[in-house]
């Protein structure tokens, strides 16, 4: 355990975050894209994953009696908040208040299954998340969904940030917040570059760590790595590709991601040290390693736009410059051939 002790780093950190009893809000974003789950069903089933997540949520709630949680699901067609339920944050709050005042009233609002062996708050969350998630999974048209390649990760992140903003910054409750993104990731998934980057910058500004746990075989999520890196979150790839397996998901979650934001400066985070900093082309949405950059608005392009104008700021590029760029290699070929 000594390994995670990072207190030597404390001296370096200028931020003086005193350890106190501040509760924290955990926002969990769950990938609800069924085909991806189906792809990795030999390693982990949805129900197993959901069970792991619920255990993790319960653990978070158990750490402090004012800790709260927000669960968001996303698939290719969109993202939605699963918990707290739509019917109103107010009702759940009043419920919580009831519970805290220990008025044991098993009224109409009580969950259907009466299981007295379970802490009430856990139970509410567990049931709501399960029901809402199944709803979401069942009411998706997979064929339609498949036509849309853009993943709704950016949408989900926005939702989470919005929720955090409302409950932490607008309400001015003294809370810390963090986001955990649980993504499976499939091959065809393309994350929208600009919306995602905007979310990352917002999180960075609000000092909200974004953690990412990647389960599936999909391609490396460049932007998610960047998200973790710039918000001081944890990026963990536990897919087969990384010669790991998501089988022990609950263990990963509980040992890797449970650390409260207030603890983060003091411990060594199990994140990935190599971060891919590449950006995506604005035209093709592909990650590029060498490309062109608009000299006016810094828009990134992997090819010269066909209409000779910047796709973002509409700057018309000078013919001369473009002619220079367009001329691909090289006339030395002859010489090279002659040599041998």
């Amino acid at each position, binding site marked *: 355990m000594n*390994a*995670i002790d*990072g207190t*030597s*780093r404390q001296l370096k950190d200028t931020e003086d975050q005193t350890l106190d009893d501040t509760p924290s809000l955990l926002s969990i974003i769950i990938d609800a894209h069924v*085909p991806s*789950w*189906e792809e990795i069903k030999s390693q982990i089933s949805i*129900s197993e994953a*959901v*069970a*792991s997540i*619920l255990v993790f949520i*319960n653990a978070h709630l158990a750490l402090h009696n004012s800790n709260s949680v927000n669960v968001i699901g996303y698939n290719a067609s969109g993202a939605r908040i699963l918990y707290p339920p739509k019917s109103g944050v107010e009702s759940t709050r009043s419920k919580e208040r009831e519970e805290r005042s220990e008025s044991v009233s098993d009224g109409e609002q009580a969950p259907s299954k009466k299981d007295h062996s379970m802490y009430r708050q856990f139970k509410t969350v*567990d049931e709501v998340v*399960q029901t809402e998630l*199944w709803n979401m*999974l069942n009411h998706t048209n*997979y*064929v339609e969904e*498949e036509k849309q*390649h*853009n993943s709704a990760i950016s949408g989900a992140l926005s939702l989470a940030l919005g929720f955090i903003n409302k409950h932490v910054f607008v309400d001015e409750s003294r809370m810390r917040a963090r986001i955990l993104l649980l993504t499976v990731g499939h091959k*065809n998934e*393309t994350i929208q570059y600009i919306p995602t980057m905007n979310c990352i910058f917002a999180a960075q500004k609000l000092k909200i760590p974004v953690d990412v746990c990647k389960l599936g075989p999909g391609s490396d999520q460049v932007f998610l790595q960047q998200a973790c890196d710039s918000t001081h979150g944890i990026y963990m790839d*536990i897919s087969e590709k990384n010669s*790991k*397996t998501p*089988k*022990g*998901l*609950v*263990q*990963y979650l509980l*040992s*890797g991601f449970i650390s409260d934001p207030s603890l983060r400066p003091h411990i*060594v*985070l*199990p*994140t990935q*040290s190599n971060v891919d900093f590449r950006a995506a082309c604005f*035209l*093709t*949405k592909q990650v590029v*390693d*060498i490309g062109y950059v608009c000299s*006016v608005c810094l*828009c990134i392009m992997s090819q010269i736009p066909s209409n000779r104008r910047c796709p*973002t*700021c*509409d700057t018309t590029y000078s013919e001369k410059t473009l002619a*220079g*760029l367009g*001329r*691909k*290699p*090289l*006339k*030395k070929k002859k010489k*090279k051939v002659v040599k041998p």
Partner: protein
Amino acid sequence: MSHTFQATNKKVLGVLSISAETKKLEWTPVSGDRAPINVNLANVTNLQATPENSAKIMLKIVAGDDPSTFAFSNRGTMIECRDVLQGLVSRARREASNPPPSATGDGSSTPATATPPPKKEEKKVAMDDKSLLADFQLQQTLLKESKELGKVFAATVIHGGLKPEEFWSIRVHLLRAFALTSNQKKGPYNVLSTIKPTTGSDNTVNVQLTPEKVKDMFDQYPVVQTAYDDNVPRLKESDFWARFFQSRLFKKLRGERITHKDPTDPLMDRYLDDEYDKEAALAAGMPDKVHRFVDIGGNDSQAGSESFGNRPDMTMRAGSSGRDVVSVIKSINRLSERLAQKSEAPLAEKEYGTLALADLQGETGAEYVPLQVRQSDTNGNKKDSDGDVDMTPLDAEACKEYVHSQYDNPVSLASLVHDDYSADYAQAWGNVQGAVNQQKGSWETVQESLMDPKVLNDLLVVHTTTIEFLRHFWHNFQEGSAECSSMANSLAKCIKRIDAAVGEVKDEQQHKLAVGAMASVKTSIHHALKEYDIALRG
């Protein structure tokens, strides 16, 4: 201003008049048929007076090769005449050799309407790429100015064998910026405001004066020059300045209010009146058409402020009240105007008017170019890395089935708990620990064993050189220029250079760090060379 003295020339009594305006000395005989003598003061080469103990009281003026001698009846007159002559002669000479910017041909020149200074020979710097690239002098000054750039230049061009033209070809913008900044000239500033008398420890007042400041002062306040020219050889230079800085004139020029407590100084106060006269002359010569914006009288009659009882602001009161303040404001305004005229081509009247009115308008918002991020759906033809469209038909049924199967066996948290500690969990824990250890390692390297500054410096030089060559390579590569192959060779050399630099680091820990530090740039080179190879082949 002219001075007249009684003086005898060759036994004939006459009147000697010295005029500051025409810079001429004129002697006209009172009687007799002697021709008058005219001497241009600028031509005077020598002035001689009889020593004090001599019985004769005579003044000899040598202009050209024709000396004329004047005898005076008493010594006081002679000394006065001599002083006046000295002042005027030196002034005339200076002006002859260095014509002042404002035409002071007539002594009543008004500064505010002074003609703009003759356009100086402005060195026009060509800003086009070609001449910038050819301007070696400019490039050298830039290298000297910017140390960073100088280092890169030394590493790549002097030691790395890059052609200087290549080096500059991608830095034309730097050259242009530098050419622009270095050609900017400083405009004039209000020099009196920068002169601040300080009280020293021995209770004496000190004023710092530099030749430049004196020159600027003469330039901006002609009255100071007049005072100086009239008095200086007579007074000691230091005395003159001491008196000047204590005088009411100084206060007035600085725009301070003169109070009765200020010491009077007959010498300096003469010029104070001069200044007032000029103002009066200026007021008399006001243009017929006053711009409505600045027409105080017009404002007055329009608003009828007096009848309404709202006393207008002091500066807005035309007439005698608050004369001091208004005159101070006027003189400062005049100075500003003069400075503005000196620094720039004078504004056309129309422009001036719009400028004055635009001052009253609120701030205009910045104009932005809207950036439109279009989310065009180009994924229809998206290809994966293999190049073929990866669209395995989705088995919707299988998915549905899978969801239902999952739905049927409900989530049980208890299922996660096994009796024995599962191998999966052990592995997971091991992985997390592994990640922590890896992170810890990288922390320690960053934190504890920072690179040796010398090693770091060496690597930095190699790194900048390599980046420079990479830049040129891609530049040439894109342009399909013939230089590309030589650049590719240079890149190959760069790899060797990096290896050599890293190899020189003997300390094991340092070596490891060095290898890590240079890894990414090496990858870049390999990538570049690979691209080059591909391009060569097909």
